[in-house]
Structures are given as C-alpha cells and as structure tokens.
C-alpha cells in the first residue's frame, strides 16, 4: 500500500467500529474498490478480526488477488461469491474459503449462506457465525441490476438481524449521487455514516 492508502486507513480507523456495529461509507463509485481494500486491511490486519466479504459485482478472485498483491493476510477472510458461476471468468483462481451462490439474483436470500440463515439448502456449505466478526458488502449498488428495491430491503433487514444477534460489524459503501434511492434505504436501516473526505483519498 502506498502513503495515500495508509493515510486513508488512518482516517477510517478513527471511524469504523467506534460507535456501534453498522456502517455505510459514502464515496464516488469509482473509488469504491480502493476504500473496500483499505477497510479490509484495517479489519483483518490491524484489528485481527475474522470476517466475510460478500462480492456482488465480480468474481471473488479479483478481490482475493488484490488483497494478495497488497500483502493483506486473508487467513481469516471468507467470501460469498454471487458472480463467479455467472461470469465465465477463468483468469484468476484463488482457492480461499468461499461459498458460491447461483447468481446475483434473489439478494433477499443471500444471508442464508450463513449458518444462522433461514433455509436448509445452504447449511452444508454455510459460513459459521462464530467465525465472523465483520461482514463487508462489495458492492451493494451492483445488486440493483438484478433485484428489486423490496428484495434489497429484505436483504438489509436480515443482515441487520444477524449483526444485532451475533454482534457482527457490517460495512458497505454507496455513492449517494449515483444511487439516491439506495442511499435513502441504507440510511433508514443503518445508523452510522462515514463520509469519505476528498483529503482522505488524495492526501
């Protein structure tokens, strides 16, 4: 990571997980990948947390590869990949702990991938709740392409229930200018908002 990323990490460190368990961060869509990377580094390495990255817009291998190249230890990170079986992608293969869903549709059922989910179908491949300190969603707006706002709301409420019940930190980013209605929905469900400031990103 370069100096800018370290400064961003320092700024986020004083915000993420400081007051409660649920966080949205707001930034331009084009900077989402970078902020997610820095948050994962903060949680996995600096805070030694165990967590799950829910990948909604590309095969998980890209995020795993990105973390590897930036030397972020992924031993305590699992993935829920909604895209890989749907993308025909064969470039990056990175055998980490991963639960695949059949596609990015039915986001309202996504949290069934956890052992505390509501459907039996996922149980055998589920992620155990005791292995989870945080859940990061990357990136929530891309689910809008395949899901109704009602399904998004159901997903969010289930995620909040899991978070409250098991004391899990949840983090997701949104671009409030590009996705106004989604931002409104997230704000109605999630207590804490971190506005990523320009100076954090660019020094």
């Amino acid at each position: 990571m370069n100096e800018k990323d370290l400064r961003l990490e320092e700024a986020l460190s004083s915000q993420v997980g400081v007051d409660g368990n649920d966080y949205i961060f707001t930034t331009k869509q084009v900077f989402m990948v970078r902020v997610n990377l820095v948050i994962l580094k903060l949680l996995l390495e600096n805070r030694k947390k165990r967590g799950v990255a829910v990948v909604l817009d590309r095969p998980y291998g890209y995020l795993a590869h990105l973390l590897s190249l930036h030397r972020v230890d992924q031993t305590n990170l699992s993935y829920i990949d909604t895209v890989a079986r749907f993308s025909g992608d064969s470039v990056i293969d990175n055998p980490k702990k991963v639960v695949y869903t059949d596609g990015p549709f039915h986001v309202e059922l996504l949290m069934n991938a956890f052992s505390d989910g509501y459907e039996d179908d996922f149980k055998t491949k589920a992620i155990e709740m005791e292995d989870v300190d945080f859940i990061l969603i990357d990136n929530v707006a891309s689910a809008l392409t395949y899901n109704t706002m009602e399904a998004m709301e159901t997903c969010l409420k289930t995620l909040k229930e899991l978070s409250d019940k098991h004391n899990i930190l949840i983090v997701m980013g949104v671009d409030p200018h590009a996705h106004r209605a989604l931002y409104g929905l997230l704000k109605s469900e999630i207590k804490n908002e971190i506005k990523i400031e320009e100076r954090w990103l660019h020094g």
Partner: protein
Amino acid sequence: MDEVSEKTWKNEEENEELRENEMVRVASGIPGLDDMIEGGFPFPSVVLVAGSAGTGKTTFSLQFLFAGAEQDEQGLFFTTLSEPTHWMLQYSSNFSFVKKEYFGNLIQYVDLGSMLNRPVDEILRYINEKIAETMPQRIVIDPVTIIGNIIKDDYRKFLFDLTNSLKSWQAVSLLTGEVRPGEMYPVEVSYAADSVILLSLKAEGNARRKYLEILKMRGTDHRTGAYPVSITREDGFVVLRTRF
C-alpha cells in the same frame, strides 16, 4: 387515491427505480463527446477506439487519462510495440491538457512490449498484477491490436479474458486498435468491447479531415453518424458540432 393519481404515482416509482438502475458514467475528457453518449462512458466498461495511423487514437486516450487525473482518478497506460514510451510522451507533452506532475503519479506507464513473446496466460497475469498494484479507475492499452499480430491463434480467447478481467477490476478501459487497409475496424476486438468508437480520415478536396463515429455503445443512447474532430495543441481532441 383516484385512478389517474395512482397511475402517476406508480410511474414516478417506476421512473425512480429506472434512474436507480442507470449506469454510473465517467466523463470522457473529450469536449463534445459526452453530450453524444448520455454524459460519459459507462463504468465499468471496455471501449475500443479504432482508427488508422494519424487519426488521434493516442491523443484521445491520453486526454481521457488526464481528465481522470484532474479528478484524482488513477490512470494506467499500457504501451505495446507502437513506439518507445519516451518518444510518445515527448510528442504528447506539447498538448495543453498534459500536466507533467501527473506522470509517474496519477498516470502510470507500463511497457508491455517485452512481455509479448511470453505465453498468453503470463501476459494476462502481468496485466492483472499491474492493475491490482495501481488500482486505476482508467486504463489504456495502446494499441491492443499489436498483441493480436504476435499471439495470433489465442487472440480471441485472450481478448475475451482480457476484457472480462478489465471490467472486473472496476475501471473504464480504452483499447486502441489499428485499422488495416481494407477493414473498417478490428473485428475481433469489436466483439469483445462494450463500445466501439471509430476515428477516420476522409479526403475532402486536397485535404483529409478527421472524423469520429460511435458504432456501438452498450446500454447507452448515442448519436450516430460521423462528426468532424479537430486536434490542436491548445484544445487537444475536440468533437465539433456539425454532423456530416
């Protein structure tokens, strides 16, 4: 609620959902172009900028990167075997949009030329590593068609994997493509790309004028037809209003 009000309310709700599904777009940095493509290139996407020598492909691509750098977006420029990087930069540095402080910082250069005799998987791995290192929002490969001349049989598979990979890195990527005599644009790349912009030269009297035409732009209402362009040191690459 009466029938008309209910209908209006439902329409507004549907419109809101439609707006929410609209793609994020990034400004092209080319004056006159964004008005033709609903405000900018879809993010993420892969755009083929095709044209014969002298039509402005490299200038177009550099201007796209510098426009991003102005908004603190990271740019990554892969050069293939077109010309040594320092010569290309020496010529392009005459444009007023070029700010030297961005070189090696918000705009990174990678020479792919020495990689092109390696196996296809290795070339892709190298490109992916460079992208993961720099995390760019804007990528250029100039020109991608050189790679096709070298790897030949695996080119289609390479293009499929490359474009799939570029989109998954969450960036807008411009691939420039050289047009051979007798062909309109590089067909293999046009299938893999989300958008195709054709740059051309047309003889008019004793002179040749430059034109831009959008042949394809997925998910975007776009203007059709050839539009004249000008390339000057002061203004860079500009699409002029008049259509021919």
